[in-house]
């Protein structure tokens, strides 16, 4: 059994590595996207000051705070003060105001943030209220730092879904699967080899792109590499399994392409590749949580930006493992060697 599995694994690896155009594209595309976004967003200062308000659930309008009427400042409400403090640390928010107790208001600023400094000066002009100052420090997180996991995840998603799904449908359509079915090779051996081959290659590519991108733009990575590797492996496996499930029965490349697009495009926009889902309606966030790319990106960003370890991202890891098992079981159960 292991001999047959290794034979298919080796053959598939050779096929992938020798397909130079596809291999090059898998490496070059994500780096180009990251570089492009870096150039686009690195120079453009955002026009507004962003101030997070923790009000303990009260509407901002009901607070009757004069500072909140200052023009050219964007105020937004937060419910989790710890996560809001981290955002100030990372310069994703210029200031955090805790107004849940109007008699003892607090504010947080980043010592090294020029916008925080200006906001602090404006706040000190408020004569009626005395604010308690809390200072934090931390490296600023740029959009590109936030984007890197997204682009790497998206590259993984396309490679996993199309690289496995499309290839198997092509094998089925041109009769190669039928030929394999005429040998003692079992479906589970074939599927396992496809998963393993794509997983090894996509992990090698992702690591290469990760290092290459870091050398180019020097992104932020504060957490455990082991946790990042683990979430990446599980994320890739779950998406390969999803590709296999789509390809389990389909014999038309057009239909497979349509189905794979139907999965990949919502993931591109709902899983938070380009933009954070914070502030979107809760139902949308719940819907996005069932997508493997969402779980992968949540886990990867928690590790890279917030310094999370394996324990903190355990819910994401479990969700990805569950999806993998579900997709693989359904895929193996419904797998068809040939087109009727």
């Amino acid at each position: 059994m292991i001999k047959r599995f290794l034979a298919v694994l080796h053959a598939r690896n050779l096929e992938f590595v020798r397909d130079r155009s596809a291999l090059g594209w898998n490496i070059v595309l994500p780096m180009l996207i990251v570089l492009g976004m870096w150039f686009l967003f690195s120079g453009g200062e955002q026009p507004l000051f962003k101030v997070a308000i923790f009000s303990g659930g009260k509407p901002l309008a009901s607070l009757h705070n004069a500072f909140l009427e200052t023009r050219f400042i964007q105020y937004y409400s937060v419910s989790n003060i710890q996560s809001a403090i981290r955002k100030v640390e990372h310069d994703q928010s210029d200031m955090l105001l805790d107004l849940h107790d109007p008699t003892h208001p607090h504010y947080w600023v980043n010592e090294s943030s020029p916008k925080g400094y200006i906001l602090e000066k404006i706040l000190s002009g408020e004569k009626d209220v005395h604010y308690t100052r809390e200072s934090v420090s931390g490296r600023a997180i740029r959009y590109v730092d936030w984007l890197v996991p997204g682009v790497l995840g998206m590259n993984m998603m396309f490679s996993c879904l199309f690289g496995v799904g499309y290839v198997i449908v092509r094998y089925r359509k041109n009769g190669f699967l039928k030929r394999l079915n005429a040998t003692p090779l079992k479906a589970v051996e074939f599927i396992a080899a496809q998963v393993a081959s794509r997983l090894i290659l996509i992990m090698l590519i992702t690591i290469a792109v990760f290092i290459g991108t870091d050398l180019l733009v020097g992104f932020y990575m504060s957490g455990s590499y082991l946790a990042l590797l683990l979430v990446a492996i599980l994320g890739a496996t779950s998406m390969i399994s999803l590709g296999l499930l789509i390809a389990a029965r389909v014999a038309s490349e057009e239909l497979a392409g349509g189905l794979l697009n139907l999965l990949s495009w919502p993931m591109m926009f709902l899983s938070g590749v380009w933009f954070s889902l914070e502030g979107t309606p809760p139902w949308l966030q719940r819907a996005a949580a069932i997508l493997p790319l969402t779980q992968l990106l949540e886990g990867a960003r928690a590790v890279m930006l917030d310094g999370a370890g394996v324990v903190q991202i355990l819910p994401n890891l479990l969700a990805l493992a569950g999806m993998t098992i579900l997709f693989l079981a359904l895929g193996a159960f419904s797998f068809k060697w040939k087109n009727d």
Partner: protein
Amino acid sequence: MPDIIEVSHLVKHYPAVKAVDDISFSVRQGECFGMLGPNGAGKTTTVEIMEGITSATHGTVHYQGEPMGPRFRSEVGIQFQSTALQDFLTVRETLHLFRNFYPRGMLLEELAKLCALEDYLDRDARKLSGGQRQRLLLALALVNDPVLLFLDEPTTGLDPQARHNFWGLIRDVKARGKTVILTTHYMEEAYLLCDRIIIMDHGRIIAEGKPATLMAHHFQDAVLQLPHEDFRPARGAFTEKVMDVGEYVEISTADINATIELLLSYRVPLSHLQIRARTLEDLFLELTGRELRA
């Protein structure tokens, strides 16, 4: 010789077609067994049921006296009518891939020699010519040193020279004592290679036996061919068994001497006369009223 494979009352229905309609036959160990018929006769469906690739609607297939089990996959070799191979692999790598699917089999060097692939082992399999590709597919079917070999229209699309080369390979394979089941719509191929044949049409068997015996049973005559122009003076004297075939007329006759004398008596020039023996093509025409490749 004992039967290696036995087909009983095989039926296969597709939604709009009855592809195989209650056929029974058996194949003996060591023989080359031919399945003939035009496109759509049900040959490929029958052979795919025998290979365990397609399921039958009714009927059974027994291999060495038992229903087909896991042993069957390891002991048979199959060459499909058309098979794509994995991209970006050389001939050697493709053979190696398939060799690893089986617990036992032939050495790669021996296989390459048998199938005349020694000079192409390191070539990308996509860059092979039609004949070389068919030889690679044959090698893949032989990679496990099978006792039973299925060849489904292996020479379709090959040029005459490649086809003759391929026939030589099949004879070599047969000489190794392997049972070969060959489907084809080339009657010449079946006549040259097969010990026994069945002829199928519309999912049924319409003739079965040794090619020479079948021919002898249905035909005791030969065919004389003459150009239309040359034959014209004698046309009135031949009311039966004359067919127009392209630029020629074909006269069927059991007594060649008498026919030639009759032609001479009408001063028919015989310099373009050709005499040919009956072929399986004729037999198919005789049995169905249709040409085989129609």
